């Protein structure tokens, strides 16, 4: 390896290292399994939404594809998971989850060729069109999907044959959080790999990325497929934890809300979707108790306000907050480490 390549590799490795903030985030997330048992139902929804937002972040934040059609994968996999559980085709939930993800990824692969061409608006319309078409199909074949009444009579077997889903959502939450964590690890590995770097290059300037030898279309197809798989797993999780699946998994509102979630959290650093999901869910819960019928108004107002304030300015706040947190954690660690170093030093002398 040339010195330059070694230097670059080392820099990239350093960038990919786990920071104190990240470790703390996941410790808190897993601690909530034991610390917040009465909030598990809403936390389950949050974890699912977070996974869904993570899938959008992969294509929007890293590859720069605007999509209003992530619900297509969410819904397809949701119905798939519901159907296999209802008819007992795949009994183990984990296996069913993986299969649902694969089905959604296959759909993502097929439709990815549609988003390669055209401007932002064309992409927006095509992704939207695909999810709307699936919505119409699900409505048309109501003998399979249950139509407007939803898919009922789903019984989900215990996870790995050991953990039964309970009505308070304890098992469901632990399950969803674990899946989210695993998916997050995969996504994290992806975006810090050379593959992830090439995606950023494509987002920056597709033409130049092509000129330095990055196979632009192949990369976009790949990330779109992966993202679809993640979105599908989120949909399957929703079906499995609620034992229900209705037409609104394919609705436009779901995709639009998802964009909002990601924008609240910020795009392009993986935690955006997760943090956004937490803020969004609890805010929705809070507003809905205040004005059950008109909470959409406040969501809309928030969107308008975010854009008028400016996402770049918000990103700057994120950056500042993260930097402060990182300083705090590294400071805390250094503070812990310092006495040990000081103690070791005299021995060496």
């Amino acid at each position, binding site marked *: 390896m040339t010195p330059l390549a070694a230097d670059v590799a080392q820099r990239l490795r350093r960038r990919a290292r786990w920071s104190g903030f990240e470790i703390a985030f996941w410790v808190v997330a897993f601690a909530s399994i034991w610390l917040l048992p009465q909030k598990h139902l809403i936390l389950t929804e949050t974890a699912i939404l977070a996974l869904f937002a993570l899938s959008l972040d992969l294509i*929007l934040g890293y590859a720069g594809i*605007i999509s*209003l059609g992530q619900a297509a994968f969410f819904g397809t996999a949701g119905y798939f998971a519901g159907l296999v559980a209802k008819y007992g085709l795949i009994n183990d939930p984990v296996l069913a989850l993986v299969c649902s993800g694969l089905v959604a990824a296959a759909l993502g692969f097929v439709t990815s060729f*549609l988003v390669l*061409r*055209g*401007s*932002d*608006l*064309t992409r*927006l*319309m*095509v992704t*939207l*069109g*695909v999810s*709307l*078409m699936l919505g*119409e*199909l699900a*409505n*048309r074949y109501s003998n399979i999907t249950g139509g407007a009444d939803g898919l009922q009579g789903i019984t989900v077997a215990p996870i790995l044959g050991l953990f039964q889903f309970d009505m308070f959502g304890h098992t469901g939450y632990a399950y969803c959080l674990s899946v989210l964590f695993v998916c997050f690890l995969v996504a994290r590995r992806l975006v810090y790999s050379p593959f992830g770097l090439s995606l950023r290059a494509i987002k920056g300037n597709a033409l130049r990325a092509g000129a330095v030898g990055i196979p632009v279309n192949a990369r976009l197809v790949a990330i779109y497929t992966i993202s679809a798989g993640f979105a599908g797993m989120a949909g399957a999780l929703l079906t499995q934890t609620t034992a229900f699946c209705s037409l609104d998994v394919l609705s*436009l*509102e779901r995709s*639009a809300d998802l*964009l*909002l979630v990601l*924008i609240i959290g910020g795009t392009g650093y993986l935690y955006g979707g997760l943090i956004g999901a937490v803020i969004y869910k609890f805010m929705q819960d809070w507003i809905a108790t205040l004005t059950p*019928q*008109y*909470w*959409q*108004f406040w*969501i*809309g*107002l*928030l*969107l*308008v306000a*975010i*854009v*008028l304030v400016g*996402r770049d300015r918000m990103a700057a706040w994120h950056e500042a907050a993260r930097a402060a947190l990182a300083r705090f954690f590294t400071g805390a660690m250094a503070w812990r480490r310092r006495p040990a170093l000081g103690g070791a030093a005299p021995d060496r002398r």
Partner: protein
Amino acid sequence: MLTILFDGTAYGMLLFVLACGLSVTLGLMNFINLAHGAFAMAGGYCTVVLVNRIGVPFALGLPLAFLATALLGGLFERTLYVHVYARPHLDQVLFTIGLVFMSVAATDYVMGSSQQFVRIPEALAGQFNVFGIGMGKYRLLIIVVCGVLTAALQLILAKTRFGSRLRAAVDDQRVARGLGINVGAVFGITFAFGSGLAGLGGALGAEILGLDPTFPLKYMIYFLIVVTVGGTSSITGPFLASILLGIGDVAGKYYVPTLGAFVIYAIMIVVLIVRPQGLFARGPAR
């Protein structure tokens, strides 16, 4: 068969009047305005209030709806939209979707969630029978009004000084600016006018399309289809696209009712795959 053609044409004409403002704003400022339907809904509700509650005659209610929405559009353009023109598309989408959500909830709050009907004069109810085809009088009115509007729009664009300024600004904004055309003002006026047209369309279409608070969400897709399929460089493109869409939708719902709007979405996707810039675009969009 001919009845379908007739109804479809009426529907398509209506869609064109609703969407042409959108196509101009998109072509001129490269601005994705998903909230266009909100203005159409405003026009519809304005007519409902004027005609049903205050008792203004229907023929007067339509121009008033146009004026009210044009004013509203102008106001929004000057106060809110101007800040978002230079932003990336994602910001524009978020901003306008936010506006849609707000308009839906606000309308629900003020007018209630039930469907509204405009009281149409007796003379417009019923059907003509021409060569054995039943033609609804109201639909005929829509075709006539929208046809006249389209012709007027075409004339304004082609013959007036304002029209040539607008076309110049659409073709190349920077050069138009350099020639001393106040692109901002041209755009403001066009936006207000387009919103007014949408309001008029909403008022006329309340009978056919149905008017309830979810109107902007329900028809947003249709407007966008018209614009993306038709292209944004002229008004002939969106016009042909909306007629096609209208006939296609009516025929689709008549022949394969269970599939609903599936046919339309499928056609749209195919068109966008084959011609990403729209069916009738002259060249690659900027």
